[in-house]
């Protein structure tokens, strides 16, 4: 079953993707954050750039809690992508 989720982007991930947030419908095949990142890369050059496998690894949060790539997105309503944090 396809699922509607809100995706959010921050810092240079936001700048590369070119938007701060969007509503998307996830294909049923996407089970984890890692799956979602691979799917994102397929959505266009700006996504391919933002989510490129490389040293600047994008981090994720589901419903405002940090998660690892293997976390399930099955019941997620809001998924955020961002660089490692640099506050303080």
């Amino acid at each position, binding site marked *: 079953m396809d699922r509607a989720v809100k995706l959010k982007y921050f810092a240079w991930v936001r700048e590369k993707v070119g938007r701060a947030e969007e509503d998307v419908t996830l294909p049923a095949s996407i089970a984890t954050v890692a799956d979602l990142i691979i799917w994102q890369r397929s959505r266009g050059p700006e996504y391919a750039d933002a989510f490129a496998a490389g040293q600047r690894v994008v981090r994720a949060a589901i419903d405002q809690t940090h998660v690892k790539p293997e976390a399930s997105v099955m019941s997620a309503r809001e998924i955020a992508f961002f660089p490692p*944090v640099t*506050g*303080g």
Partner: protein
Amino acid sequence: MSVRVQAEDFDISVEIARLTQGRSDVGAIVTFTGTVRGSGGGQAIDAITLEHYPGMTEAELERIEARAHQRWPLQASSIIHRIGRLAPGENIVLVVTVSAHRQAAFEAAEFLMDYLKTEAPFWKKEDIAGGSAHWVDARAADNAARDRWTGKAKGEPG
């Protein structure tokens, strides 16, 4: 316990008074203030801009603060983090811890800063003098500072 994310500056004396007024069991108050340095990586900086994740930021700071209260006998604490554009010399962040004894107040303030630096969703962009701007990279030293707390006390998830 109190957490605030705001554009406005803060006054440390006022924030301390907010936490200690009317109490007579306080013995030790530690504050940490982080400020904007005028240079980064050898380059002069015009300003920094702090972006955050509204909602998650407050939730994450409250989780960090709750863990400090589980771990140390704190009577009160406060975390204030500014957002937006800030010039060199301006305040960025304030952490206040209040306890009967100094060891708890010091350790909890360091703990709050170490976790804030590595888990609270803020991102810092530096405007270099002359025009270019770049996002600040996370520092491995900050992860190492956080990780020294892991397993140090009972029941602490780390």
